[in-house]
């Protein structure tokens, strides 16, 4: 028999009084980076807390490596968790913090310090490892949390909003860390409410909305499934009317709208095909372009379609 998947949820529901946090979610995740997408209050943190044994499901079963995390702490030997909590022990150095947590895995002090060093250099904090966490910036603090989560070389890494509140530089370095973890063959769960962030890390996504599992799988595949819905492309250019004329007769385009003299909105039912033909048409027309945007390419519109679809 093969090893059980890292994460299994079987018809899991969790409610807080009248409010439902997770509504009948079933999924199994094993290997690679998975983005958990959802708006605030969609149930991402509740899902993670269920996984980490903080909460007990009202219905269904949660399994980490085949073990119920509410009853047993043993799966945590293979799990690293970065909580959404902002507070840390500000008086500790990151070295202390990470090695103390490492010792909770039963390592000796020496072992723990060695591993902490490795983890901190992995997240690029080795040069400030002996500074107090209180003096760190937001991004550095997030990275310390990640270092603490992967100090014991876990097989599963759960990251609750790791990019929240970080500046672009910190964002990029944290994304690199996550990608690297994924390429090392670990199972990584990352939650976010920003599609673009997740897109830069992984293609495998889970979308939650109001506690329900809305979509699961490859981002592009999901999007392709949604291609029958109208998409918009916003182009800013010098002469919008001239540009519009060049592709009004092309197949994927079914409508054009002028917002003002310098911007133009194209309606299409096949986004990928539209993007395929767009560059050549623009070059052919010779009209200077300021920007091309996909206003629908965010979580809200995606959710709008998905939820609208389910109704």
């Amino acid at each position, binding site marked *: 028999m093969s090893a059980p998947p890292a994460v299994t949820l079987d018809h899991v529901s969790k409610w807080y009084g009248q409010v439902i946090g997770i509504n009948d979610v079933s999924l199994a995740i094993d290997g690679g980076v998975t983005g958990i997408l959802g708006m605030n209050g969609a149930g991402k943190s509740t899902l993670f*807390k269920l996984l980490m*044994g903080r*909460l007990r499901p009202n219905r269904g079963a949660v399994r980490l490596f085949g073990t119920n995390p509410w009853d047993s702490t043993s799966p945590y030997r293979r799990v690293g968790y970065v909580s959404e909590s902002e507070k840390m*022990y500000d*008086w500790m150095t990151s070295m202390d913090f990470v090695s103390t947590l490492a*010792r909770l895995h039963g390592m000796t002090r020496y072992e723990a310090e060695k591993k902490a060093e490795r983890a901190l250099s992995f997240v690029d904090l080795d040069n400030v490892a002996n500074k107090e966490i209180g003096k760190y910036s937001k991004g550095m603090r997030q990275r310390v949390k990640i270092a603490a989560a992967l100090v014991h070389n876990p097989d599963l890494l759960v990251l609750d909003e790791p990019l929240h509140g970080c500046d672009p530089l910190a964002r990029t370095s944290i994304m690199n860390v996550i990608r690297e973890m994924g390429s090392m063959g670990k199972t990584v769960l990352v939650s976010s409410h920003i599609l673009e962030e997740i897109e830069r890390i992984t293609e495998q996504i889970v979308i939650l909305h109001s506690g329900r599992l809305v979509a699961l799988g490859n981002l592009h595949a999901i999007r392709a499934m949604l291609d029958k819905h109208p998409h918009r492309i916003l182009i800013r250019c010098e002469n919008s009317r001239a540009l519009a004329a060049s592709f009004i007769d092309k197949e994927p385009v079914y409508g054009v709208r002028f917002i003002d003299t310098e911007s133009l909105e194209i309606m299409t039912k096949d986004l990928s095909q539209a993007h395929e033909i767009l560059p050549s048409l623009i070059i052919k027309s010779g009209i200077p372009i300021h920007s091309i945007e996909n206003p629908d390419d965010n979580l809200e519109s995606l959710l709008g379609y998905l939820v609208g679809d389910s109704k």
Partner: protein
Amino acid sequence: MTFGDPEDSEGRRLSTTVWTAIDRKAGAVIELTIKQLRNKTSTWTVFGISFLLLTLLSAFYIDSVRQGFESIDNDGDSVDNDGDGYPLGQEKKYGSSDFDREEYPGSGLFIPSGEIYYSGPRTHTGNHTWDVEGPSIFTLNWDNIDSSFPDSGQQCPDQIDDEMINTPYGWGPFSCTIEDGLKYVQFLRFEGEGTLSVADGWLATYGITTEKFDVPPEPSQNYVDEDGIDWDPDNPSSSQGFDDDGDCTQSEYNESSYGENDDSNRNGIPCDVQWVRGADGSVLQIRPDYLVDEDPVDSELMGESSHRSFIIITGKIAFSMIIGIFLPLFLALGLIRDESENGTLHYLLSKPIHRGEFIVYRLAGYLIFAGGFVLAMSLMMAVLTSTLGPDGNRFSDVNMWFGIGVVTVLSLAAYGSIFNAMGLISPRYGVYFALIFGVYEFAMAVMTLFGAELVPIFSVSHWALQMIDAIVLVVWSDTIMLSQMATAFNLDTGLAFFWSPPKHTLGTGSPALAIGLSLAVLISFILLPILIGQSIFKRREID
């Protein structure tokens, strides 16, 4: 590896067992807890104030050692109330009053032989010493009423009548001559031969006066520390003591009605001290007759006994009550509650550590930190009192302080686990429960200090104080004797006030049993809340 110990992919050696891993987890949580407490300002404030408190008490102690013990007139007989030059102790021996200038040792005592009573015949004739109270007429052959009471110039009554009941000449000694051989007298003692007639409603006594003799007055210092404790531990008899200053044996020798000497302890032997001893020879009770061994040499006895009372009371109030109750209130309540409020609990609980284990390690960390402080403080006090204390085997001080330290650490543990469990049971109300519980414990401790034995039985502080009482008896088995001596012989040491033998001994009186019982109760006060806290924390959902 140097030991040829193979490593797995994680670098863990095969010799790493479950047990060593548990040790390491415990070590990590304990270390974290200690570091956390060390980083709180309130910790050092509380430690600082506790240290200041002990310094204050030590300063008083050092000052009292430096001054030594003055001789105290424990029975108060060195005074001279009437100013006749004879101290009370000397007057007592001679049976004279210390409130009458005219009466002093050797002054000649008036011994009554008969009286003119309120009812009955109003006159009497004879040659006597007369002691007249109210208005009277004396028809005399001779008398010695001399010029000490000259006629006051007031009109002298020529007879005594009904009006006289209100003594028209006041309430002091007075006499005047009505005519030759006839005198008016009131409130006066004199010698004379003749007939005395007394006004209705008044009385007079007559008798003889003993011969005067010369007794030189003694200096009042003779009546300070003049009646030491006479007791011989080797003498198996329970009747001990000797009335060195004779105020028991010699008082009232002249009054026939009190012919027998004082035997207030009712052991059949007048003017002795009864020393009741247990089977092992230790003194359990001391019952002196009135005025026997009542003014011992203070510097010999006070030193040891007030030294002990200082240690006991500092141990009880400063250590067990103040440090024992308030330190946990500041340090223990937030051990887990603060973590879960701040959200930092997530870091710790994401690691493979059982929640129940976690509580125990947290408490252990707090206990090592706070207990270390308490033991250090008690060591400091031990060094101080064993160096400065009165001569003798002062190593016992160290034992006593160690005992106090251990009791305080037990209280810290009990309060720690109780407060912690309160925080876990109700994150919202826990702090308020803890505050009220703290005040309750303090009040129960005060009641225990004042000797209550039943009401405070459901409090940690009661059992902690009881345990200190019992440890005192183990370390210094003669404390009962010192305490009894303090009560019996009016020694003002505070020992009898602050210490009494342990109350909960199941009737055996054994201090070891009392320690065992207190220990059992305290340990259940420690374990029960931990178990309750564990079972609640295990089921708690952490958001």
